[in-house]
């Protein structure tokens, strides 16, 4: 009973926060909001912790039904929550990081006139995200799935006076919607196959199916379309860089730590379906890898601090999908977790920098900030090291796990993954050095204005830095003498698929060490190169900012993918719309309809002239009529 109450309390607090803030959007003073909004998330976090502490991984997952949502005969969709290790892990991430970022936002958004609105959206987001991870069936997940999409839309376009931001928001929502349609179709296929949408039922049934079943392949592919939308994978990733239009805490929470990982979560949640669909797994692997490389490549050439981080996020999400495709569900979830820590930290750090620079986001106009903002710098550096995969920080372990699995899956995959990893190291250090090392390259006015952020912002940074640094410990591999805690914790969720998956022989420790060493060496080399180039030589930053090489030009322009979409999708669609409206609708259908009308009128106008007014003519016609009638009736 107690459990039950707590489970429902977790999403209730943010909802309450949203409703209260939303209702009193003009009334509630800022101070109250500043307490209320993070407070609600804190309460939620506490509830989660209580739940977590009271939860034992070996106990069966629990379903808590709130009410029956949609029920028609066999279609029974209860509004129910599933509590199992996976959802608890996600709950912790969402509420934990959510809380931290809420606190940070209090400082970051201090001056903004839309303070209350911001926090109401944020609370709504947390609520939706909680629904997403807690849902006990696909439709409830879908509620959260779309809900976070909405919040993302609202928050990206938070500064709605600017149409570019609005466009970015709309783009995010629509691209997500494309994915959502896939998700919907996936759900329908699940329902028609299993006659249920409930996780338990579906997975139990699926377990008995043969691998490679085309229906399962269909389901998983369709669901993956949804995941690709939400988690910004090729071909639906272009919204995420644009989404940086939103306030930075939003980018940290939604577009780095939580929402974008929903796709990973969903695939991990449906692991049994995926493990039985090798074809889909291959698709996911290729997509993930391609995304990881592509995004990393683009990130190298970006100059906007948030854009770099956004591409980095895309790239890291790609990694997670690579991990998933290699069957490393735990690895993916592990990376998800650590990524949440360090990427949130990176964004918040970037936010701190932007805050200090009065909104400046171009790294070419930064530099030398480490003196002015030591806390930010240190935490940012921790995060950079973590993401680059340098031990003993968290990113190293999580990424390594994926790489190892990738090697098991295919050495080629590993090669590419490592290449991506090297690029990651390069652009992250490029970012770090350009921002914090060297001399300040901005205007004098800005230099004067430089300051470290207030405590309300730096404390979250520190918390996250701690997490980013030591986060690896939660799943420290046996190789390092760890107990692989996360793996053990998540074991019940992935057990079934683990038993289904073909067990390759685990890599011998020597190979593991070797691989690790190679990667690490590469990463360090990259870091060094970046240092040399951007700190020691200051190359790569031409005053006229003209891209020099082909690669640079392409990378700077994001490989022209947006232009490509514009050309291939948007323009044809607009053309089609014009064609439908101006040609088909107005010239064709409407004209036919009006044509019938005017035909009637014209016929009427023509026919009436037989009424000549001439009696002689009338008599003629009548005689003719008489003759015809007689003739046809009597003589024939």
């Amino acid at each position, binding site marked *: 009973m107690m459990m039950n109450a707590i489970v429902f309390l977790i999403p209730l607090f943010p909802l309450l926060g949203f409703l209260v803030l939303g209702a009193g*959007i*003009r009334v509630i003073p800022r101070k109250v909001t500043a307490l209320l909004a993070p407070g609600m998330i804190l309460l939620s976090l506490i509830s989660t912790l209580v739940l977590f502490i009271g939860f034992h991984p070996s106990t069966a997952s629990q379903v808590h039904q709130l*009410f*029956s*949502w*949609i*029920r*028609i*005969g066999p*279609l029974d969709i209860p509004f129910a929550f599933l509590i199992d290790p996976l959802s608890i892990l996600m709950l912790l991430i969402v509420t934990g990081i959510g809380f931290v970022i809420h606190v940070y936002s209090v400082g970051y958004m201090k001056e903004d006139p839309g303070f209350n609105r911001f926090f109401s959206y944020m609370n709504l987001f947390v609520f939706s995200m909680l629904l997403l991870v807690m849902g006990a069936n696909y*439709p409830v997940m*879908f*509620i959260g*799935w*779309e*809900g976070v999409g*909405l919040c993302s*839309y609202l928050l990206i*376009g938070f500064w*709605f*006076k*600017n*149409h570019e931001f*609005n*466009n970015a928001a*709309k783009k995010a*929502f*629509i691209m997500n*919607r*494309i994915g*959502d*349609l896939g998700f*919907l*179709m996936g*759900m*329908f*296929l699940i*329902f*028609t196959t299993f006659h249920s949408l409930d996780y338990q039922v579906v997975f139990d049934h699926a377990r008995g199916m043969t691998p490679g079943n085309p229906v399962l392949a269909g389901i998983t592919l369709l669901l993956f379309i949804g995941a690709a939308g939400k988690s910004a994978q090729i071909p639906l990733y272009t919204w995420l860089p644009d989404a940086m239009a939103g306030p930075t805490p939003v980018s940290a929470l939604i577009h780095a730590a939580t929402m974008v990982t929903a796709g990973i979560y969903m695939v991990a949640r449906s692991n049994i379906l995926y493990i039985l669909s090798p074809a889909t797994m291959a698709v996911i692997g290729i997509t993930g890898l391609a995304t990881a490389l592509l995004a990393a490549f683009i990130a190298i050439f970006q100059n906007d601090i948030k854009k770099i981080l956004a591409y980095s996020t895309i790239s890291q999400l790609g990694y997670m999908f690579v991990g998933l495709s290699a069957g490393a569900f735990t690895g993916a979830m592990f990376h998800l977790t650590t990524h949440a820590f360090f990427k949130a930290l990176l964004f918040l750090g970037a936010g701190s920098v932007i805050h200090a620079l009065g909104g400046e986001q171009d790294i070419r106009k930064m530099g030398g900030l480490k003196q002015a903002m030591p806390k930010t710098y240190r935490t940012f550096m921790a995060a950079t090291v973590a993401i680059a995969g340098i031990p003993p920080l968290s990113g190293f372990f999580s990424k390594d796990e994926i790489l190892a699995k990738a090697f098991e899956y295919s050495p080629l995959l590993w090669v590419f993954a490592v290449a991506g990893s090297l690029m990651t190291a390069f652009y992250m250090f490029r970012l770090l050095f350009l921002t914090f090392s060297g001399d300040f390259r901005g205007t004098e006015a800005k230099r004067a204005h430089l300051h470290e952020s207030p405590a309300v912002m730096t404390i979250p940074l520190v918390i996250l830095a701690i997490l980013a640094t030591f986060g690896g410990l939660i799943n420290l591999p046996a190789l390092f003498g760890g107990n692989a805690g996360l793996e053990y914790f998540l074991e019940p969720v992935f057990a079934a698929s683990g038993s289904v998956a073909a067990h390759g022989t685990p890599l011998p420790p020597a190979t593991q060490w070797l691989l690790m060493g190679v990667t690490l060496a590469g990463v360090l080399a990259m870091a060094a190169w970046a240092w040399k180039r951007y700190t020691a030589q200051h190359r790569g930053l031409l005053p006229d900012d003209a891209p020099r090489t082909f690669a640079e030009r392409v990378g700077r322009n994001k490989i022209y993918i947006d232009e490509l979409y514009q050309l291939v999708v948007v323009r044809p*669609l*607009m053309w*089609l*719309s*014009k064609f*439908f*409206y101006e040609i*088909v*609708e107005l010239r064709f*259908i*409407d004209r036919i*309809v*009006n044509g019938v*009308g005017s035909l009637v009128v014209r016929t009427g106008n023509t026919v009436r002239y037989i009424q000549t007014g001439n009696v002689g003519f009338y008599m003629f016609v009548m005689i003719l009529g008489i003759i015809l009638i007689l003739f046809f009736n009597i003589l024939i």
Partner: protein
Amino acid sequence: MLTIILILFPLALSLATLLLKKEQALRFFVLGGALIEFGIMVAAFVQYRTSCHCQLLFRAGWLTNMGISLKFGMDGISLLLVALTTFLVPIIILSSFSHTYRRPATFYSLLLFMEMALVGVFTAFDGMMFYIFWEMALIPAYFICAVWGGNDRIRITFKFFIYTFAGSLLMLVALIYLYFSTPFPHSYDIQDLYAAVLTPGEQTWIFLAFFVAFAVKIPVFPFHTWQPDTYTESPAAGSMLLAGIMLKMGIYGMIRWMLPICHVAVHRWGPAALVLAVAGIVYASVIALRQKDMKRLVAYSSIAHVGLIAAGVLVLTIHAMQGAVIQMVSHGINIVGLFLVIDLVEQRTKTRNITDLGGLALKAPRLAIFFMLILLGSIALPLTNGFVGEFLLLLGIFEYSALFSAIAGVTVIFSAVYMLWMYQRTMLGPANDITAEVRDLSRVEMAALIPLIIMIFWIGIAPGFFLDTALPDVMTILSYAR
């Protein structure tokens, strides 16, 4: 008894309204009357017992020797639609208070007369009564749109009238033909019509006649061209009546009359009709992408949405049918909300041109919020009413054909595209000259909007109440149709 009161009360109101002269008293009277009507509806809801068919039956002989009787009653589907009608009419009345219509007494009288006809259509359990009320609804609709409409109203509304009238005449022929196919003694009673003995060929013809009549009203592509023009030219109340309630007549007619009667033909020709419906979804959605006029945009979006409902009706799966029923209600609420918001915008800025607007959220945040909520309903965000309907519809269509479902599903994407575009261009962005001096919602306007919002979330969060009401009757219809 309640059923016939539900029909006669608006009629009485409509006639009484004509006697009133003072506008203030008139408004009070009309709104009060419409609310009482809603109250009667609530009473009917209370009396209604789910899982037992046609209830609250009123039956009286009218032309007994011709097999026509006054048979009115309600089953779950009727009940929901009558509830929708009686719910929306007060809102429409309330929303029209901010206009100063010429000859208000006539206006409100027509509006109430139309309510009577609509309730009649939804409760008629006799074929000829259905037809009579069906046509009776057309006359006030025509006059409301034609007299109080925009500049090009004469031509447009006339097209609307003649188009829909011609369509329904076919239905008349079909009904008479059916009458003679019923078991002796012939009658128009719904049960007898269901029991009509028809050859497959006859079924096809009757199906076609019904389909055209209903397709024009719904409207299903390519019978839709009256609709955007009419919505655009109509006064706000007219658009709301047409889009919110009247087009439900077509879908209701399909469910109640077409499917059970020509079940053989539906199986045979339904796919062809389905293709039209699905094509219409894509077609209208794509057209809506580029519309500049808010009303016209919503009109095309409505074609897409109701195309989905029509498709759902035609696939004959329980989920789709239930989805259709719930979506009829949802669509009614959402579209009335959208037209209401558009009307509010137009009142304030004297334009509906999307590109001329912008920044309304700055000046009228409440308006923006309400608009957003209604918009969420109409783009089918989960936990709003639109989602329940579209989910069930798409699921039901999926059970019939995954391909159709996928094609129909693009409405999910496109509706987000054009709706958000409209929202962004009108509400967001910087304010301009036109929108600089806009005031926010008044209390009366809020009073009209809030019930809609409540319904959007009620249906979205707890659709069970509505689904359960309709379920037994949907099952019955399907059992006939199969």
